[in-house]
């Protein structure tokens, strides 16, 4: 069934279809309408779940950690400083290998206060061990949310589904709501690899020493370093799992096909613009204009950010003379995190450095600064002749 609704409602419907059992959340703009919708669905009996209106985001994720440890499919959502306040538990959920799914309606972080869209909140959680997916429109939000549960439960790694605050969270778009029966075919009920069970007691997440040692049964057990290595190894393997799950989804629902990166007119492109989230689709319009002017330019949307699909990114950029990475976040003190990651991928995957493209990092839309299509077009037009005005922050007025 096709409906016209907001991005937050798309996420909520995805959560409902996934049969989530525990929701814990705290209000924060622009995420709030998502969890309000879930609260409404649960109270109306349309969702068989428990909703906990906790006292802070830190508690929200802690409740999900408890619920997931007890074997329940668990969900939370947040934005900006709410995500930052969760940070300790964000690391914890990944280290504990709990398949929690969280939606992040991306918003700038304080100080100073700002409630509008950029990606600094989720980018700053890059190193926590969560899988991060960036949705570009409402269809992707609902589909990615469903896929996220299967992905999290297959890999025992929590998943963040990130979408742009306001630009997607509050705007209305038509999208198809998958049928419940098909969702059940795609996403079987959650059978945790381990759940708290009084008949088989265990101690979860207790202190591990720097060196490996025997456990209470006298058997050699993994130490902290081994446990953390396995998280890293499983995250790297998750790139392939993302592709497999997308293929399974496509078979049932007929949508998908570009779960790692989404190239647009990249085949013959001499120049490629790389971005994440809704900006990607805005860039499609921009390069159409530039194409009519005779420039061979394409767009590469990065859909999976962690684990980083380095091989797919490098493959999509092979043959390009120049790459522009346009980001709504920064690793302060250096450059955009995506830009660094992309350069690293090129270094690893293009052995002949004389054939590697130049990479130019650009910053746009920080704190919700309007990203005008005309500005993007002008910037890229300048970029094609190597003359983008410094500092490469589109729309900045100093």
């Amino acid at each position, binding site marked *: 069934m096709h409906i016209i609704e907001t991005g937050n409602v798309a996420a909520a419907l995805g959560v409902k279809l996934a049969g989530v059992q525990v929701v814990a959340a*705290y209000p924060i703009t622009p995420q709030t309408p998502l*969890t*309000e919708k879930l609260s409404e669905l649960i109270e*109306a009996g349309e969702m068989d779940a428990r*909703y906990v*209106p906790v*006292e*802070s985001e830190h508690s929200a994720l802690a409740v999900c950690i408890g619920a997931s440890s007890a074997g329940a499919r668990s969900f939370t959502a947040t934005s900006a*400083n709410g995500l930052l*306040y969760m940070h300790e538990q964000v690391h914890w959920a990944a280290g504990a290998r709990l398949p929690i799914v969280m939606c992040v309606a991306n918003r700038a972080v304080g100080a100073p206060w700002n409630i509008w869209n950029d990606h600094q909140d989720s980018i700053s959680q890059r190193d926590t061990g969560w899988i991060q997916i960036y949705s570009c429109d409402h269809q992707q939000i609902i589909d990615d949310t469903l896929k996220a549960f299967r992905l999290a439960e297959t890999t025992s790694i929590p998943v963040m589904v990130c979408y742009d605050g306001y630009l997607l969270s509050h705007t209305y778009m038509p999208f198809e709501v998958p049928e419940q029966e098909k969702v059940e075919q795609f996403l079987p009920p959650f059978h945790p690899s381990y759940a708290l069970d009084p008949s088989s007691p265990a101690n979860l997440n207790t202190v591990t020493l720097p060196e490996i040692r025997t456990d209470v049964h006298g058997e050699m057990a993994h130490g902290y370093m081994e446990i953390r290595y396995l998280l890293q190894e499983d995250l790297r393997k998750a790139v392939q799992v993302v592709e497999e799950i997308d293929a399974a989804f496509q078979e049932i629902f007929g949508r998908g096909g570009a779960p790692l990166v989404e190239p647009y007119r990249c085949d013959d492109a001499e120049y490629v613009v790389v971005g994440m989230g809704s900006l990607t689709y805005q860039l499609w319009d921009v390069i159409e204009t530039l194409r009519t002017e005779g420039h061979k330019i394409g767009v590469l949307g990065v859909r999976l950010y962690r684990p980083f699909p380095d091989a797919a990114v490098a493959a999509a950029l092979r043959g390009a003379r120049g790459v522009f990475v346009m980001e709504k976040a920064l690793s302060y003190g250096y450059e955009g995190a995506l830009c660094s990651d992309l350069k690293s991928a090129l270094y690893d995957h293009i052995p002949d450095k004389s054939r590697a493209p130049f990479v130019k990092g650009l910053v746009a839309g920080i704190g919700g600064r309007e990203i005008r299509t005309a500005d993007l077009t002008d910037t890229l037009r300048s970029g094609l002749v190597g003359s983008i005005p410094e500092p490469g922050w589109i729309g900045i007025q100093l």
Partner: protein
Amino acid sequence: MSALIDEQRIESPPESDYKLPRINPHKTSEIVPWLRTPKTIWCPGCSNGTITRALIDAILGLELDAEKVVIVAGIGCSGRIAQYLEYSTVHAAHGRALAVATGVKVADPSLRVVVAMGDGDCSAIGGNHFIHAARRNIDLTALIFNNSIYGMTGGQMSPTTHTGDKSTTSVHGNVEAAFDLSELAHAAGATFVARGTAWAYRQLVSVIAGGIAHKGFAAVEAMAACPVYYGRFNLTADPAEFLKGQKEHAVPASKFEEGESRLHEQYPVGLLHHGERAEFVTSLARVREEAQEALRG
């Protein structure tokens, strides 16, 4: 009843003839210079403007040196006060206002620090700071705009939303119990606790002024009208009716019977608790002096 177990909880009773400061409201022309903007984002019928004015009235009435006044605000509708007042203000992260204010006060004890918070900011995400500031008895004035709901994010239930109340996250009625913030402050060790309403303006100015003048942790609960969310969902969407409700629900503390529990429709207003106990910043200075004296031998 105090929840402190240390011997320090023994408070000296206040002077028997203690009365809250009586302040004659100032003219609008005297209030306006302390506002940076004639416009706010507060909804029509919201009483945050009334409480903000009462705060200015109290500061003027106490004749405080404006250069020594610092307002620390948290997040939520009330947090906007940090942008509206022509005093030194700090807008803190959600729930962190009291912790930031603690830093301000210990760095310069001569500052008069008022901490503006909403009920959610104060008792949910910042609840821990609230009980610990009270336990420490640090010389701060917590001015709590209590509208019984999260207004800024669109009407979700907060820790002061009563059982059975409706909100966007308790569409069919809240199952949780509500905090009585004044009782919570008292139990946690606040040495000045008072409550006012947006309806009774002079009393509101008086309890705020009493809190600022008090040496120690003062919790001043200002019952706010939120006709747009709390009122529309539970009482009335009419601002005047909402205020009339406050008039009916508020009972002077002296007439509020001992042991009577605070109900949704009945709560004591005015000075609720007043005592003297060692103040945190002063105690810190004293301990340092004693330690240095001991080292000098």
